[in-house]
Each structure stands twice: as C-alpha cells, then as structure tokens.
C-alpha cells in the first residue's frame, strides 16, 4: 500500500490518497475559485500587468448601453499608466465603427487599440499575400475591413432561399475567383449561403476562415436565446466536413496580431472578459493574467460548479480573479 500526502499551495485543499500500488490513482480534485478583487489584493493585482485587453459585450457595454461605471474604470486604469486594448469577437463592426461607439459611450479609444475579429481576418489574409476573392457569409464588418486592405469579396445580405433546392444544384455556377470562404455573424443566414460556402470548400486549396465561435447570446429576463456566430460556422463546418481557422478568442490569432505590433509581454498582460470558454480560455492559451466579470454570460454558480468538479477542461475556464462588475474597480482604485 502507498500513502500519498499532497498539498498544493495553489489549491485551497489538501488531500490524502491511499491505494494499492498496482492501481495507483491520484484523483485530481477541485481547482481554486477565482479570487475576488478587494482592497486587500488590489495593489498586488495592479503590479502584475502593464497592458489590459478587455472584451466588450457583457463587460464594458451591453448592446448600446454602458455597463455601470465600466467607462470610468477603464479610464482610471489608463490614468495609472496601463495600456488598453479593446478585444472583441464581434465581427459586425470595423475598427472605425467601434471608435464611434466607444466615443458615444464615454470610452477613450484610438483605432490602433481596437482589435475586432473582422480586422484580424483581413490582416490574416493580407499577411499571407492573399490575392483572390473571398466568399463572405457575414456582415459589412467583414467586407469593409477587406476593402481596407484591398481584398475583393462577394456582397453580403439576404440570398433568397431556392424554391427547388435540387434544381439549384444544376443551375448554380461557382465563381472561379473565390479562394477563401469567410464566416462571421450573419443575420441573413440561409440554406443557399451554407450550400454555396460548402461548395467552394470542396476545393482543398480554398481557405476556410471563421471570425469566432461564440455559441449564443442569452437574452436577460426572457426565455429567449439568440444564435451566435458559432451556429453559422458549425453549419458550414458540418456541410463542408472541414474545420475553419478561427480568428477570435479563444484562438491565439488575435493576440498574435496585437503582440507583434506592440511588443507585448504575455506575463505582464491582463485579459478581462465575461465568457469563460472564449475570453478566459484565450487568456490562458496566450499565457495572460485573467479577470472575469459577472455582467455577461457567466454567473457565480458556473464558477463554483467548475471549481468543485474534477474536469480539467472546466478548470481551464477559471480566471485568476473575478469582480461582479468592472465598475467596482473605480472604488478599489480610489487610493
């Protein structure tokens, strides 16, 4: 028999395992809950980073409304010398369109500080000297960023569903110029669009890019849920039997774009988000410090459930710190 005493400074619990040597099994138990930021740890917290990457929807704004004092909190972080980047999976706006939204809602921002997935997608193609045409399932967010780097593309908008799908197979012609299928959020998603996208992807040389894979937006105080970009991407991915290269969180592509141009040190960078399987996982994938706020899709019960369970994949979703809302930083930064 072997008795093992394990004590980890990182985990909040110690455990003893006694077992036969032949079937030695060390059960990984709980992981640590994110620590709540308060007056006792705020100084140490602030010393950990020089740069802040913040998610937008569910953290600093919800739709077209600021969340509490999020704007004051970010501006105060800037005052104490932190660099701010707005990092959003939302593919429906260009960087210049985001500046307008930031200004309207009281957030200081420069174009170089905005990192949206449509921008990243255009950069991805530009860096690879892409010189063909893009079939877009998405919005003007994508098409305008492609225009900004001189890459041609199809038009977005409703593509009417065919009356007789089987005859459309005979009559539809594919554009030989298309060398990439790009999928982002598309409110006009239709069978025809999925059909066209999957048909272009029959050619293995045709690139398949997705802006992000966020699954859904629960609508607070209602029984409704709104489909996210992940649903459109999954439809094309399944029909084409191919996986896309994903630009947005949790993929590290977004961080690569900022890191290169700004010479960032991941260990001195903080990621703030509300969606753990994108924002926080992104932070972990890139080696960043992480803070989760509870004004978006994550609730405290989710954090408790993941911490109590023994699934290492769920443990990866646990941020280092949490706050009920970003605006709480304002009081903490008072001193």
């Amino acid at each position, binding site marked *: 028999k072997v008795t093992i005493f394990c004590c980890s400074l990182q985990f909040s619990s110690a455990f003893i395992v006694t077992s036969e040597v032949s079937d030695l099994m060390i059960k990984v138990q709980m992981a640590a809950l994110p620590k709540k930021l308060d007056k006792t740890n705020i100084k140490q917290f602030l010393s950990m980073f020089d740069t802040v990457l913040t998610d937008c929807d569910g953290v600093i704004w919800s*739709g077209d409304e600021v969340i509490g004092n999020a704007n004051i909190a970010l501006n105060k972080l800037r005052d104490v010398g932190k660099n701010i980047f707005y990092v959003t999976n939302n593919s429906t706006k260009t960087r210049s369109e985001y500046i307008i939204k930031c200004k309207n809602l009281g957030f200081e921002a420069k174009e170089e500080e905005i990192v949206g997935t449509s921008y990243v997608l255009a950069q991805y193609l530009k860096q690879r000297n892409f010189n063909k045409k893009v079939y877009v399932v998405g919005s003007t967010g994508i098409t305008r960023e492609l225009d900004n780097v001189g890459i041609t593309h199809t038009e977005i908008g409703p593509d009417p*569903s*065919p009356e007789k*799908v*089987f005859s*459309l*197979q005979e009559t*539809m012609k*594919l554009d030989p110029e298309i060398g990439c299928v790009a999928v982002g959020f598309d*409110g*006009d*998603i*239709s*069978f025809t669009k*999925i*059909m066209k996208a*999957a*048909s272009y992807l*029959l050619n293995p040389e045709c690139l398949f890019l997705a802006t992000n894979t966020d*699954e*859904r*937006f*629960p*609508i607070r105080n*209602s*029984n*409704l*849920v*709104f*489909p*996210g970009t*992940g*649903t*459109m991407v*999954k*439809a*094309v*991915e*399944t*029909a*084409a*039997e191919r996986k896309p290269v994903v630009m947005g969180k949790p993929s590290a592509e977004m961080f690569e774009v900022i890191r290169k141009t700004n010479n960032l040190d991941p260990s001195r960078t903080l990621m703030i988000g509300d969606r753990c399987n994108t924002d926080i996982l992104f932070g972990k994938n890139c080696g960043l410090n992480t803070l989760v706020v509870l004004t978006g899709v994550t609730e405290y019960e989710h954090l408790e459930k993941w911490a109590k369970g023994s699934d290492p994949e769920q443990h990866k979703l646990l941020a280092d710190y949490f706050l009920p809302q970003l605006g709480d930083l304002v009081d903490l930064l008072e001193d």
Partner: protein
Amino acid sequence: MTGNLPTLLTKQNVHEFFEKFDNIISDCDGVLWRDMEAIPGSASMIHKFADMGKNIFYVTNDSNSTRDHIHQKAEELGFPGQKESFLSPTYALAEYLKHRQFKRKVYVLGKPDITHELTNNQIEHCEIKEPNDDDTTCIKNLMSSINLDPSVGAVVVGFDPEINMRKLATAASYLWSDDSCLFLCMAVDENNAEMNQPIILPGVGAISKCVETACGRAPVLIGKPSRTMFDILQANHGLDPSRTLMIGDRCNSDVAFGKNCGLTTLVVLTGHTKMSLLEHYATEQDPAHKHFQPDYYVNSLKDIHELLQL
C-alpha cells in the same frame, strides 16, 4: 495494412454468406437508387433476395418523404414490398412520439412531409410558415417579435431549405427555456457529397448541428445510426438481429446503425463510401471509427447477383 479491411464478397464466400440471414434491411439512396434513378442491377438483386426466401425491409434516412412516398417511389423504380416494409424517419418520428404518449405540440424545422406524417398520426404541430420578407435581422426587433407557444413540447429538425435566423432563434429558444422540451433530429447526414456534383447540398446534420450549437444540447436521433427504426421493425415483424443483414453505402449511418442493433453489415461502393474510405478506416487508430467499419463489402448489388450466378 490490408489485414484490417472488411471482407470482400467473392464467389467463394457469397453463397454461405447469404445462408446466414433470413432478413435483409437495405438503405435506399446510394444502394438502390440515386435521386430519381435506379442504380443498374439493384432492383433485380432485391427480387433475387426475395426469391431466395429473404424478408426484405427498406430503411432510409430520407426525411423529405412520408412512408407512403418512399413506397410509391420504390414501386415506380421496380422494387418489391408492401408499405409496412418501408421505414423513413418521418414515420419513425410519429411512432416515437406515440410510444411516449406525447400529448403536446411539435415545432418543426423541415418540410411539410414531416407535418403530414404527424397529422396522419394525430400529433399536433405548429404551422410551417413561409419566410417573411419583413423578417428583420436586427436582434432587438427580431427577438421582440418571437412569442413562444407554451404548448410546444418538442422541436424536430429535418431537411429545411427555408432555414433562417427567426426559425433558428425560435427553435433554440424552445429548447433553451424548457429542459423537458424534446429535441429530435431526423438524420446526421452532413451533405450529399456522394452525388459528386460541384454544388453540394447541406444535409440535415448541418442544420441540426446549427440548432445544437445555439441551444447547448444534443438531439435524440430518429434516423440511422440510432436504433429507433430497427426497434419499430423488430416490434412489428419480430426480427432476429443475429439472422439479419444490413446493406448500406454510408459508414457513419448505415454501418453504425447495423452495429448498434447487433446486425451483420455489408457496404456497397455505389454511394457515399469509396474504397479510399475503407482503406482509411483500416489503417487509422481512432477507436471511434471501429464502429464505422463494415464486416463485408462489395462494389454493388449488381456484383452480388453476378457472384451468386458463378
């Protein structure tokens, strides 16, 4: 490497092989017909099986048609059998709900064949509406115009060429807001790649995965490879799985179906599966793909006819 390939039917083994079975279940698309045309030699082979004393059953994942439609198509293309020998997911769906004493309403993403079959079996469903040109894609306006019907107790995903954001949001919301709401999908077919055409049609599987992603849970599958359709045949005809052969063209539906039901499986290469796929499964290590490897394979039903005559 070829050691792991399924066994090829040859003149040496073919007679003994078929003596093991009283029942033959055949898939339709890619085995008997492609779209509206019979595959040469398929009809005469099925007739031969009947002459050999085998009970013939047809199990298709085509959720575009009611059972009566499939039976009619088969008759027109020269295949024998009463309508009770035919099973499609639309009929299986109605049986599945009746078996569970389902008394609520069904929200259908699909074509009227599904709702016709439900009506035939006295199961209530929402109207399939024509997509509205006024359908706005602004989140706020769209969501405020969706009203969930509290009597809906099931969402069914079939082949839906009219899928749009409104239908997606509605289906996902029924499933998101009510844990007891059943989530059923007719098939897992990703596309119709086996037709080898430059334009590919998304399958039911693509739409189903879309809804699954939006609502965060997986559907119960009515079509192959789920057991549902075999359970209905077994209940109605008393089939012995150990004396039953499944013939299909799609490994991840037909072969997996056969294995899930304890049947022997034979793949023909006239449809989705090509030799390269069988070779791929034979050499790779993924344990999940063991479930897709058929016991036997042959080029076509026509080939079996020729082998039996030698």
